[in-house]
């Protein structure tokens, strides 16, 4: 058991998916918006990154994809962020009126439409086969160190930046307004504040982070295949949020760490047969479902994630 490799994998995945979980925490944990389609930001960012940074599609290869601008990695990352913003704008604006389960269903549907598009439009990004071997940035420049470690560190830095920014928002009057929106929208409105503005802003501001995480995910896996961007990602992130005691950024990170650790430990077990590995993977899914149910009921970590102290006390 290569503990070093496991550690690098865990740190990388926790960082990448941790950003997505933080995004979900801002949207649901603080603003009370049930988003069942977060994977769409993630996927939009990932695919935009690939399409911007790949070399233009050639006649010779069997892969088909819409464009390939051969841009440098940082431009791809920026493009990914813009893609997230655009997707959030397109799907966020019409849903401003929706609440609760209606919002959940619409966000879910939008994400599935996007996923279907990626799968069915061969000419977009090679359909179900997807694009493999996406080049990792700065491969040659960083050949003197272990690339995996470098990527893990980069992802971790990204996570920390996102965390700091989101935490500052949460601890400010903005965070308070989000929670007020979640607690009683009518009371917020009759206090003279526009709930739609907060809803739209929080979608537009946080989505690019999840989209950039998608680009990091491409750097990590070098694979842009639709199977990696299904609703399962959305629900893994939801489970992580609930496990961590929904409602705080720190809780979100605790939750995703637990989920990733669980997954990677199972994956590290050497199984004798494919069937055994498949059973383990299936039971892992079942266990995650069970954990979600249990944690929703008993909220054991809720005490770790009390509402943030935010007010300057007088006297």
């Amino acid at each position: 058991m290569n503990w070093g490799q496991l550690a690098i994998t865990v740190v990388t995945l926790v960082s990448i998916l941790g950003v997505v979980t933080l995004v979900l925490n801002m949207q649901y944990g603080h603003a009370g918006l049930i988003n069942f389609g977060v994977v769409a930001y993630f996927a939009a960012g990932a695919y935009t990154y690939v399409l911007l940074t790949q070399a233009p599609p050639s006649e010779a290869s069997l892969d088909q994809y819409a464009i390939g601008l051969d841009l440098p990695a940082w431009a791809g990352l920026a493009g990914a962020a813009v893609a997230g913003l655009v997707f959030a704008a397109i799907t966020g604006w019409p849903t401003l009126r929706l609440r609760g389960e209606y919002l959940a269903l619409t966000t879910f549907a939008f994400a599935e439409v996007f996923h279907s598009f990626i799968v069915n439009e061969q000419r977009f990004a090679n359909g179900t086969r997807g694009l493999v071997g996406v080049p990792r940035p700065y491969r040659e420049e960083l050949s003197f160190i272990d690339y995996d470690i470098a990527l893990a560190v980069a992802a971790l830095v990204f996570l920390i930046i996102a965390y700091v920014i989101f935490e500052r928002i949460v601890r400010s009057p903005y965070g308070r307004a989000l929670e007020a929106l979640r607690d009683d929208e009518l009371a917020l409105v009759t206090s003279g504040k526009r709930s739609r503005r907060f809803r739209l802003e929080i979608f537009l501001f946080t989505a690019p982070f999840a989209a950039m995480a998608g680009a990091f995910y491409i750097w990590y896996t070098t694979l842009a295949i639709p199977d990696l961007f299904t609703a399962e990602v959305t629900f893994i992130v939801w489970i992580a949020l609930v496990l961590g005691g929904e409602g705080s950024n720190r809780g979100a990170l605790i939750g995703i760490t637990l989920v990733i650790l669980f997954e990677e430990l199972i994956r590290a077990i050497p199984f004798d047969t494919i069937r055994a590995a498949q059973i383990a993977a299936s039971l892992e899914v079942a266990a995650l479902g069970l954990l979600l149910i249990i944690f929703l009921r008993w909220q054991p970590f809720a005490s770790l994630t009390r509402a943030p102290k935010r007010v300057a006390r007088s006297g």
Partner: protein
Amino acid sequence: MRVTQLIVLGLGTGAFLLIATLGFSLVRRVEGFLNIAHAELMSVAAFVTWYLNADLGWHFVLAAAIAVVVTAFIALAIARLIYDPIKHLGPPILLISSVGVAFLLHGITSAVIGVGIRSFQIPRLDAWNVGGVLVTPYRIALLVLAGLVAVGLALFLNKTRTGKSIRAMAINKELAGSRGINVNAASRATWLLAGLLAGLGGVALGVLGTLTTDIAFQQILVILAVAIVAGLGSLYGVIAAAFIVAFAMDLSLLILPGGYRPVIAFAIVIVVLLVRPQGVAGSRPELTA
């Protein structure tokens, strides 16, 4: 001709969606939340049937009957153990919880069944050629079953005592309780009924096509589409909505590639929720004073 063929296809799809969604909408109406795990219950029923029928060699009807009953009780057990204790937390929490239940059921099912395609051991019946249009006897049977289910449910809800108490609960739970209606018994009946309908839906899935452990997920969005078009919680609306969605999906094959068929359902969800969230027959889910 192609259009007629697709209409026939749509009738079968509509019949299936009707059965599949009635149970879902019943739960929404009476228990007040969207049970995402409903589709997984269908999967459970399908695979129990498969196991008894194809693996153990039992007669299909016997296998199906047992599977349906088992599913009904699983639905009840899940409700009692998982949903009831957190009902006070509100429909959004129950919705999220049902995702957990779906994961749980999916994990167990795929662990037991494994990967690969399965099918029932049922007689291969040739399609009849009715004036150039192919009609499978199984599809006809499904249509008949759907009709029986709809009529049966209507009779049950309107003529039996349990059915009436379910209807009373659907209108106003507290009022029903204070009027002496046994809310617990009605709730129990609701879940058994929903499980039974899910069971029938699962069996129908296996009759119409082959089974993999992923079928449930593919179905849930279509079921959601039907439920939304009907107006969340409306049962009569489901009858119309099932066929509206089915025809939209199957007739789309005239202009779109087959892979996009489910997208029609998703697009319907989006359009309906943005334009008329109350569907065909429901009330507006907006801010109220």
